[in-house]
């Protein structure tokens, strides 16, 4: 019996396909020079440096890549992207991987970042605008009780200076905005 197997795309191609609206060189161009890692201001908080992560992607090591905290640690400062001698855009690759990990539900439940981005996005789909005080309460417990007290003290000071709004703003045509978004992605995917 003859069996045929449809050609499968590599993990690198999967990642690159997530970057369709972005420009930049293919990851195959990576020469592992680590300029990206050297430029990164938060590399020491990542379990894999940007260089290593790109190497792992090129090697097709999907599980290792998706288990990494690297892309959720990226602050989007684009220092790597500015410096890459091969024209790769590592910061955009990090964004692509965050999307991939949300869709595939592969992120670690203990990480704050994925939930923060989801919460942020849900707020916008409800009001059209960001509302800073709405995100804080869910996350300040990170610092334990003293952390909560400190955040509350700061909030009170900001309130006294008139810098904290009590009521979230809302755009006028929020219904249209929701219909608009529904034309590019299913709303219940996020809500």
């Amino acid at each position: 019996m003859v069996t045929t197997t449809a050609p499968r795309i590599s993990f690198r191609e999967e990642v690159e396909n997530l970057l369709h609206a972005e420009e930049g060189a293919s990851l195959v161009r990576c020469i592992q020079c680590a300029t990206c890692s050297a430029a990164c201001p938060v590399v020491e908080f990542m379990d894999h440096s940007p260089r290593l992560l790109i190497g792992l992607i090129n090697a097709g090591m999907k599980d290792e890549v998706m288990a990494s905290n690297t892309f959720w640690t990226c602050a989007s400062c684009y220092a790597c992207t500015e410096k890459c001698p091969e024209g790769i855009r590592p910061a955009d690759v990090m964004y692509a991987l965050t999307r991939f990990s949300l869709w595939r539900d592969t992120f670690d439940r203990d990480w704050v970042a994925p939930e923060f981005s989801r919460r942020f996005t849900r707020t916008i789909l409800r009001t059209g605008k960001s509302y800073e005080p709405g995100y804080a309460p869910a996350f300040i417990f990170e610092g334990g009780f003293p952390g909560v007290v400190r955040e509350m003290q700061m909030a009170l000071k900001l309130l006294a200076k008139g810098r904290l709004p009590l009521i979230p703003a809302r755009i006028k045509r929020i219904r249209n905005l929701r219909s608009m978004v529904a034309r590019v992605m299913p709303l219940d995917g996020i809500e």
Partner: protein
Amino acid sequence: MTRYAYYPGCSLETMAATYNVSTLEVAHKLGIELEELEDWNCCGATAYSHVDELLATVLCARNLAIAEKQGLDIVAPCNACFKNLWTTNAAIKRDADLADHMNYALEADDLHYGGHVEVSHIMEAFTTPEALEAIRSKASERLRRLRVAPYYGCQIVRPRRPGLTLSQVDDPQYFEELLRAAGADPVSYPYKLRCCGAALMVTNRRAAVQTLRDLLQSAVDSGADVIATACPLCQTNLECYQAEVNRAYGTEYAVPILYFTQLVGLALGVGLKRLGIGKELVSAEAVLKRPVAAAAKE
């Protein structure tokens, strides 16, 4: 008279209200008209791009389409808003399929985007040769001898836009030029383009606090009296979490963090209150008095 569609961004209605009022004051003094974008929505910060690329694109496309309807180019005072609007604009302009998809979505809000809008950071509007000349000619001695660390942040320069040279991205000088025009002394320090930690302040506190420490130390080493920012997130992180840096590292930083528009406004004769000075958590009162006192001693 120069007119722009003004996209304040969400922070300028809340935490960064002082950036908003000082921007409007400076624009007024320079004869630049800022017409607020009608019913604008959030640019998405970094969150939408974490969730969905088309979502991130369509929400910025709506703002671009509204500006096109108003017949004006956009200026944004926030680095992240600027970067998101700029990159979305570029993506739509170079990709006809993406433009079609966006316009299909924009129909839901009776909008259409034909790609006729340009996006600038508000600092670009305030550093044109004409604006700089106007500032130079109108500036008082108010900022004399005030040592200001110009903090560009990230997304005002990165990712690099076509046409910009390496040196314009590696060592831009327009912020310094603007401060000099306003009569202040910009200091030189290596971290003027380094990240403030951005949203990591919420999602990875230790990483953000360390980047802030590096940044504050770099500015303090340069002898800065004050750090001037061009982004509400940079300002909030540097100011609101300075105490947290001090706790974590045993440091004693007390550096006031002002918006560049507050300093320029002061030089142009706008009152402290109208610029929102006095609402900082790290008071700028002492350093804003200092130059005058120091000058008097000589």
